[in-house]
Structures are given as structure tokens and as C-alpha cells.
């Protein structure tokens, strides 16, 4: 099981802040493909990966990163702190 978190407009588009999933995805990109196939709102949120960032266990990562051993995946737009 893996916790998947969504922030900012990704959270709004998908309609929930987090969920727990059973997945066989090997990489972040595989997980994204699984999510896209679930429902239209996921397909919409993940339509353009260049406008998204991903963190694995609270560290920024790339979409080709492996998911082995990861407990928490977060998807969000580019950050706007400061």
C-alpha cells in the first residue's frame, strides 16, 4: 500500500487531498499511467507532466524514479513559496 497525496490545483482537480492505493507500479510514471486510466478527473490532472512535480517520501524526485520501498508519493504544481 502506498499513500498518494495531492496539493494545490492537483488536489482540487482530483477532488481529494490523499488516498491509499494498492499498486504494482514500478516507477512514478507507471503510477501516473494507472491513475490516468482510473477516471477522467485523474486524466485531466495528469494531462501535462511538465506542469507537475513529484516527491517521494517528502523528497523531490523525477517521474522515472522507482517506487520500491516508497511509502508516500505526492503530486503538486511547481512551488510558489517565499
Amino acid at each position, binding site marked *: 500500500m502506498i499513500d498518494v497525496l495531492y496539493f*494545490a490545483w492537483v488536489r482540487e482537480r482530483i477532488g481529494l487531498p490523499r488516498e491509499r492505493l494498492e499498486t504494482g507500479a514500478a516507477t512514478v510514471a507507471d503510477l501516473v499511467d494507472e491513475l490516468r486510466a482510473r477516471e477522467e478527473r485523474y486524466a485531466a490532472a495528469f494531462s501535462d507532466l511538465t506542469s507537475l512535480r513529484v516527491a517521494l517520501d*517528502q*523528497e523531490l524526485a523525477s517521474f522515472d524514479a522507482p517506487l520500491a520501498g516508497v511509502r508516500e508519493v*505526492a503530486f*503538486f504544481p511547481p*512551488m*510558489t*513559496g517565499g
Partner: protein
Amino acid sequence: MRVAVQSAPFDVGTEVSTFTAGVRGAGAVVSFTGLVRDEAGTLSGMEIEHYPGMTEKAIFGIVGEAVSRWSLVDALVIHRYGKLGPGEAIMMVATAAPHRGDAFAAAEFLMDYLKSRAPFWKKELGAGGEAWVAAKDADEDALKRW
């Protein structure tokens, strides 16, 4: 080093005074405060979302990087989340160093990295509705100078 991620407002004067009083061996303190900007006068406020847990880790990582690059006596980062009104302080950084060059450079470095590497997202609230603030290419480019 102190990092505070909080919804409560903070008093910039008090924070700078307390920070300055606590630094030993420093010859320079630089502080920066970021405010909710309302250029057009139409903003009713701003809502800031963050990623609890990662936010603190990311900021400590950025502060640690600053400490390894410059000769710093101390550093402070305060960043708010939640609903803020126009003109309110969103965040501040303060750096203390033996000489001003290091204090200025480290403060700028902290600001550049907090902007695009700390997991905060700003949403502007106005009469015409609400809109997420988009990240700027210039913010990403700003990291390249370090």
C-alpha cells in the same frame, strides 16, 4: 538555526530584535520580509497551502546548504500558511554573519530556494474569484546563479 512554519502572524520587529540579541560574534544581520502584494488593489487575501512534514524538512535542508556555503553565525526562517490579508507578512528570513557580504548572500540564497524548493502554494483571493499563483521561469532561473 530556527525554522518556524506557522499559521499565526509574527511581528517582524520582535523577531529581528530577538534574533539579533542571540547572535554572538556576528558583525552583520540581514533580514528580508515578504508581504502579500496587492498591486491592483483588488486582492481580498491570499491562501497558502503547504505540505506538512516535507515543508520543515525542505527548509532545514536549504538552511543547512546556506550554512555550508557561507560563514553564518545563525539563520532564521519563518513562513506562514493559511489565510492572509493584503499587506500581511507571509515570511521572513534573517541571517547573521561576521561580515555583511555573507549575510546578504545567504539571505538571497535562502529566498531564491524558498521560492521554488519549499512546498508552499499561493492562491490569490479577489473580487473576481480565486486563482493559483503560477511559478515563474525567472524563479527557477534564479537558482542557477548559486
